[in-house]
């Protein structure tokens, strides 16, 4: 019986091609929009996750300054974490590596090329902590750190901008007019969380940076410190130990606030993921307004159709169609219309989001969500918008309907 109903419904909507197409259009656009928005949201989420992962897993981040219920009170706290604070964490249980960064920006010049670049003054451990790999050459060592040798590692963007196809190893470049020797290059990482270019970087020993680029009255204080933990489930414990140790080193009395803030990368990833998720839901909800409009379109069309086909309904009833049959036929018609609309809309949505991904140079996932969305839209919208017209058709009195001109 279902087969017969679907066939009859199909023939009916197929005999009004233009009208069916126009009605379908609303759902098509709606589903395409939702699929695209969900894909966009997922891409944002994936980008967030990926860039966190590229920064290295199981990281604890320590920034100077007090924390106030989860947030940092000031943009950058007074310097409070010293190089030796961080070094003291190295021997701690479950800590793989600990490092710190003092950062600045500088004008890099090589030959006639010049380029603005971020400079990170750090320790050899930072490569481990931040998931950086040496591409060619060698890293700087603890001895270089101690002596403040002017040795630098170049990120891929800096190489491209200053050297083009030349080999940078062993060359001397000038940063803010002071000479530095390139001893190694870093493997590229791609874009960071904010779409910033992580490869536009020069690394050097922190002491070198302090001595040659960014002097300070307190040269031994770090901007930020990183601790890499051996296992994810040890993060909390290690964070507590770090807090204890730093408080002790800073001679903080009981009851006073920390003068530093400890954050777990895992927490930050989750927070960022939640933001991404909320963004996805928001985008999809906005897009689904067009689905509601499309659904009203179907209902409108079906109501017109029932009135137009009053006599057909009378004939069918006279020839043995039960009320139920009539209702299901009209319901099936609207479900078929919304099904076609959402199917085509799903394909359009996937195609357009891939094109968008191509344009913005991002991998856009083709997710099971687009299928789930379009199927449920087909059923929900089809039934919701077809129910009223179908009941109207069902209730028609066959005698009246046969008399209808």
């Amino acid at each position: 019986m279902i087969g017969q109903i679907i066939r009859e419904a199909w023939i009916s909507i197929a005999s009004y091609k233009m009208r069916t197409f126009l009605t379908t259009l609303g759902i098509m656009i709606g589903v395409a929009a939702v699929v695209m928005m969900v894909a966009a949201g997922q891409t944002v989420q994936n980008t967030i996750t990926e860039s966190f992962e590229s920064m290295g897993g199981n990281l604890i981040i320590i920034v100077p300054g007090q924390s106030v219920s989860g947030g940092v009170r000031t943009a950058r706290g007074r310097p409070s974490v010293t190089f030796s604070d961080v070094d003291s964490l190295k021997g701690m249980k479950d800590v793989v590596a600990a490092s710190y960064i003092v950062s600045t920006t500088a004008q890099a010049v090589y030959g006639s090329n010049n380029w603005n670049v971020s400079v990170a003054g750090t320790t050899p451990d930072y490569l481990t902590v931040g998931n950086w790999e040496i591409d060619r050459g060698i890293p700087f060592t603890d001895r270089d750190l101690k002596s403040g040798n002017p040795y630098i590692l170049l990120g891929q963007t800096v190489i491209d901008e200053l050297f083009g196809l030349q080999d940078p190893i062993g060359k001397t470049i000038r940063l803010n007019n002071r000479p530095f020797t390139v001893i190694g290059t870093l493997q590229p990482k791609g874009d960071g969380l904010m779409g910033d270019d992580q490869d536009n970087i020069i690394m050097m020993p922190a002491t070198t940076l302090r001595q040659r680029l960014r002097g300070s009255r307190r040269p031994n204080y770090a901007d930020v410190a990183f601790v890499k933990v051996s296992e994810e489930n040890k993060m909390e414990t290690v964070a507590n130990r770090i807090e204890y140790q730093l408080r002790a080193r800073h001679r903080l009395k009981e009851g006073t606030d920390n003068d530093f803030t400890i954050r777990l990368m895992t927490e930050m990833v989750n927070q960022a993921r939640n933001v991404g998720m909320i963004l996805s839901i928001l985008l999809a909800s906005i897009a689904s307004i067009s689905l509601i409009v499309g659904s009203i379109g179907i209902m409108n069309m079906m109501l017109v159709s029932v009135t137009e086909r009053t006599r057909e309904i009378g004939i069918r009833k006279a020839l043995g169609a039960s009320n139920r049959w009539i209702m299901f036929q009209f319901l099936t018609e609207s479900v078929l219309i919304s099904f076609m609309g959402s199917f085509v809309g799903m394909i359009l949505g996937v195609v357009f989001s891939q094109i968008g991904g191509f344009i913005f140079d991002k991998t856009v996932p083709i997710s099971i969500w687009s299928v789930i969305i379009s199927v449920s839209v087909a059923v929900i919208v089809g039934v919701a918008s077809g129910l009223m017209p179908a009941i109207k058709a069902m209730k028609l009195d066959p005698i009246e309907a046969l008399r209808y001109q």
Partner: protein
Amino acid sequence: MNDTHSPVIEVKNLCKTYFMSGGMSQSVLKDISFSIEAGEFVAIMGHSGSGKSTLMNILGCLDKPTSGLYLLNGDLVSDKSELELASVRGHEIGFVFQNFNLLMKRTIADNVSLPLIYQNIGEKERYERALRMLEKVGLTGYENRFPSQISGGMQQRVAIARSLINNPSIIFADEPTGNLDTATSDEIMNLFTRLNQQGITIVLVTHEEDVADYAKRLIKISDGRKEYDGLRQSYQGRQEAK
């Protein structure tokens, strides 16, 4: 009457009153009783507004009487649910209408086989049976045309083929020749006569004496009451005698 030979239609004290908005009501059928045996050919006549169509709609299970009994093939119709009535219409009754009532967007074959859909009969069998019915009404070769592509007389023959396809025990025709010219009317009435000779019970409503002449029995309705019920010839005789 015994069980082995119950009439196709049996109507007892049938009344129909239309209740309209504003408390108005109109009594259209008043205390009508008759029975129709299998194989009969009955014409129902009467002035316009006398209640013929109302009676036909009740007999065809499209409407229910206000009071009185209606038995179709021995079954009490007034007890049946909407679903059962639909099934009775689909299995036991064939309809022929004045304005043919074909689905204009469907082929002749689709139109003829339409009642079989509601009996859940497959597409292939429907088509084959439609072809057989079309042969019966002399329309072989027209199965893939659309109603708009054939004449009124042919459309009515399609409608007759459609009314026959479920092997009904009775065919109701409400002014089947009302929209046709005399020659075409004769053609249609000859078809009914032939079907009747094959044993199909036919009840038709008509205004035209010529059309009623094809029937053996006449039921005359006047102002909602049965005025005459008997042989068509005898009624004619009575009229002429006056």
